[in-house]
């Protein structure tokens, strides 16, 4: 007899705080993500305070300075070459990859799939981009870039598609299969660039690094110089990806199918939607975004693939999970969450963080903790609501 619908409907007549916030969330409100991030930073600050005894505020301030965002503040003056500007370029470069991997995770999410295989898809993307960038020397630059980026997206799509096919045909859980695909991609790519591997640069001796891509395949710069890892046009690709993401989801039949399957696969099947096909497509498209992220990094600022990049830096794709979750899988949300995490990463990097204030190698781990806290808190909206309602007993909600 308990009709969940009726209870909620009539709740609308006499809205409680929790109900209003729940409504705001459904409408893509910012209250809860904002509090979530704040709460995570607060808890991260407590960690700093208790473990190191340092002042969390000054730590965060140092991290903020490291992000280069202070370049935007009118009262900050800047010498030449402006370190804040350089940092900001770094932040935006990281934003490019994070927005793309965030979109990747979010797209699968909207289909009800948890793609934690962004790392593997990113890696195969970098491999494809490097290879394409090495081949076809002398091709017109635009064409060459398109070819390399396209190949990377395709490779990512293929890698994600494997998990999609397994999910659609035998029902293998995408979390396990994508994790396994991550490790497979990692070791295969490692093999490719290590000494004796087919992609290793013989000119580099025994060093595990590929040949560099040809000049023509590199993305044009927007800001700064190539030598100092300036900001490349990949930023626009990321922004375009956010727009494409929104359009595909909300304005195309494909997006409609993906969302229907994500909300209720049985109803989708009843409506005539091919659920298996949607799973495959969602994973493939998700993988394509992650692969594209890899391409942007290779074509934009890291023209050769080496072992530390494959085994270490590629973890940036993992952070896409936190970006998508904090951004509530909306384009605007991913934009801001991507910016936040990009800032956190550059701000706490060895290069930018003032070691007097906080040891950079620890700051990196601190970001991981904050990331974990954010995912945890985003996953449990009830907690945020609970804290907002400050002690009043939480009524049951959203139950059958």
């Amino acid at each position: 007899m308990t009709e969940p619908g009726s209870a909620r409907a009539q709740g609308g007549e006499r809205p409680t705080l929790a109900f209003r916030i729940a409504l705001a969330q459904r409408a893509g409100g910012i209250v809860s993500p904002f509090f979530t991030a704040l709460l995570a930073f607060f808890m991260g600050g407590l960690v700093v305070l208790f473990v190191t005894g340092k002042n969390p505020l000054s730590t965060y301030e140092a991290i903020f300075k490291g992000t280069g965002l202070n370049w935007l503040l009118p009262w900050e003056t800047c010498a030449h070459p402006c370190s804040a500007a350089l940092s900001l370029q770094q932040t935006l470069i990281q934003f490019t990859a994070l927005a793309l991997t965030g979109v990747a995770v979010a797209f699968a999410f909207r289909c009800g799939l948890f793609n934690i295989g962004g790392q593997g898809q990113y890696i195969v993307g970098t491999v494809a981009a490097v290879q394409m960038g090495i081949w076809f020397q002398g091709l017109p630059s635009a064409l060459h870039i398109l070819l390399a980026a396209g190949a990377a997206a395709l490779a990512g799509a293929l890698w994600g598609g494997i998990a999609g096919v397994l999910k659609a045909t035998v029902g293998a859980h995408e979390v396990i299969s994508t994790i396994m695909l991550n490790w497979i991609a990692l070791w295969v790519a490692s093999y490719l660039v290590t000494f004796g591997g087919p992609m290793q640069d013989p000119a580099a001796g025994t060093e595990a690094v590929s040949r560099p891509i040809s000049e023509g395949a590199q993305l044009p710069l927007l800001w700064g110089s190539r030598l100092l890892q300036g900001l490349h046009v990949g930023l626009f690709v990321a922004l375009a990806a956010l727009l494409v993401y929104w359009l595909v989801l909300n304005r195309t039949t494909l997006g409609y199918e993906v969302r229907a399957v994500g909300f209720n696969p049985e109803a989708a099947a009843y409506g005539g939607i091919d659920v298996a096909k949607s799973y495959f497509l969602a994973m493939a498209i998700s993988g394509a975004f992650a692969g594209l992220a890899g391409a942007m990094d290779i074509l934009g600022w890291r023209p050769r693939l080496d072992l530390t990049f494959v085994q270490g830096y590629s973890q940036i794709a993992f952070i896409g999970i936190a970006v998508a979750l904090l951004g509530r899988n909306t384009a605007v949300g991913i934009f801001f969450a991507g910016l936040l995490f990009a800032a956190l990463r550059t701000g706490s990097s060895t290069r930018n963080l003032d070691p007097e204030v906080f040891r950079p190698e620890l700051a990196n781990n601190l970001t991981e903790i904050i990331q974990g806290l954010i995912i945890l808190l985003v996953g449990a909206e009830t907690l945020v609501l609970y804290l907002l309602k400050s002690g009043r007993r939480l009524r049951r909600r959203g139950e059958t």
Partner: protein
Amino acid sequence: MASDALVLELRGITKRFPGVVANDGIDFDVRRGEVHALLGENGAGKTTLMNVVYGLYRPDAGEVRVGGKPVVFRSPRDAIAHGIGMVHQHFMLIPVMTVAENIVLAKEPTQAGVVLDYEAARKRVRELASAFGFVVDPDARVRDITVGQQQRVEILKALYRRADVLILDEPTSVLTPQEASELFQILRGLTEQGMSVVFISHKLNEVLAVADRITVLRRGRKVATISRQGATEESLARMMVGREVLLRVEKPPASPGEPLLEVHDLRVLDDRRLEKVRGVSFHVRAGEIVGIAGVDGNGQSELVEALAGLRRPVAGRVVVAGRDMTGRSAREVLDVGVGHVPEDRLRRGLVLDFTLAENLILHDYDKEPCSRLGWLFPDRILRWAAELLRRFDVRGGGPRTLASALSGGNQQKVVLARELGREPRILLAAQPTRGLDVGAIEFVHRQLVEARVQAKAVLLVSLELEEILSLADRILVMYEGRIVGEYGPEVQEEELGIAMTGGRPVVEAA
């Protein structure tokens, strides 16, 4: 039998859910050795009240007394300790475990305090069953036994916990009329041994058949408690609904045309690869309603799913308007003009997190005018949705409202609007009124009759015999995956009931 000693009293029970008062100051009591029926429509608050008694809900106000002493139940464990047992409408049994394991769960006989003594459990179940005259196999897995047997396991579960008061929530909804009267026998046996029974139902005839006293609830309030003597179906119906109720649906005489849906020797497997539909043949003509009666789980769900393209049959043919649609996808079936009201609107009929507009285009989102070449046109969709919502009188929201925000009746109206709005030639309606209140039920019935008038072929699958009897022009009875009888609309309920238990294997030509 019934004495005046009160074993259970409820005083002024109030239970609120966000925005709804499910129970509003209800008084209710149970005497030793009586069957006390709790009568009311869907949503009247019967189950909520009993969940309060069973410790699943805590009342916002009021008091529960057992044997004259006030008690507070924090969980079912407390209720069980005070001798209260409950048989839920959806059985609380674990399908993969055995009957004995289900019965002793949480009060297991053990050796050395930890090791489960399965032998003792089996023995105890046997003793208990024979003491009350039940036949159950303690080692059978619950998923392998019939629904009627599962219900007995539920009752044994309560008896094993030494219940004095047994609450049964809509116990006959899954039973045939014969099984129901067997259940009534069992209940009488229990009351003779001094137990008390609370019998929750919305079926008037059953309440009159089994109860000593009857309490009627309407919209969370108690209307009255009366003795069975002198109560009639009409008077109870008036109390339950608050107005005169039309017990029979008005419909013009049938004028069936050519057959639009033909099914030949269809065989369908369920998810566990068991054959649930075993060679079914029938047809539905334009302008007639064919009802399929039967106890739940006799293959009706699988049959409808196969007809709707959601389940691939292993043998046989489905012909829709002259075209062989056997094994075609749901999309193809929908596109040749089949509408389908699924049996579970929350699980399948609606995407609750979609807006009403998005739900209304669930079948046609990829066609003009909703979209072209994969591009959606939100304005056209919203206009189309607004028009449909108006035509089908959906209240409580507009095209942009989330489906989850509507009441059950309005949700079902949205489903009907979608299915009928695309002007199908054939309508498959599976339990279209389940869980609805009287007003919504009348609406659904009118729509089905209207579809018939418009020369659509309507296949109605329902567990409610009354619904089938009042709507169908021809009635097919399904038992264990076969059609075991075909009847005209004048058939007696008893006759259908016998067929529903497989009692008469002879197929009677209509």
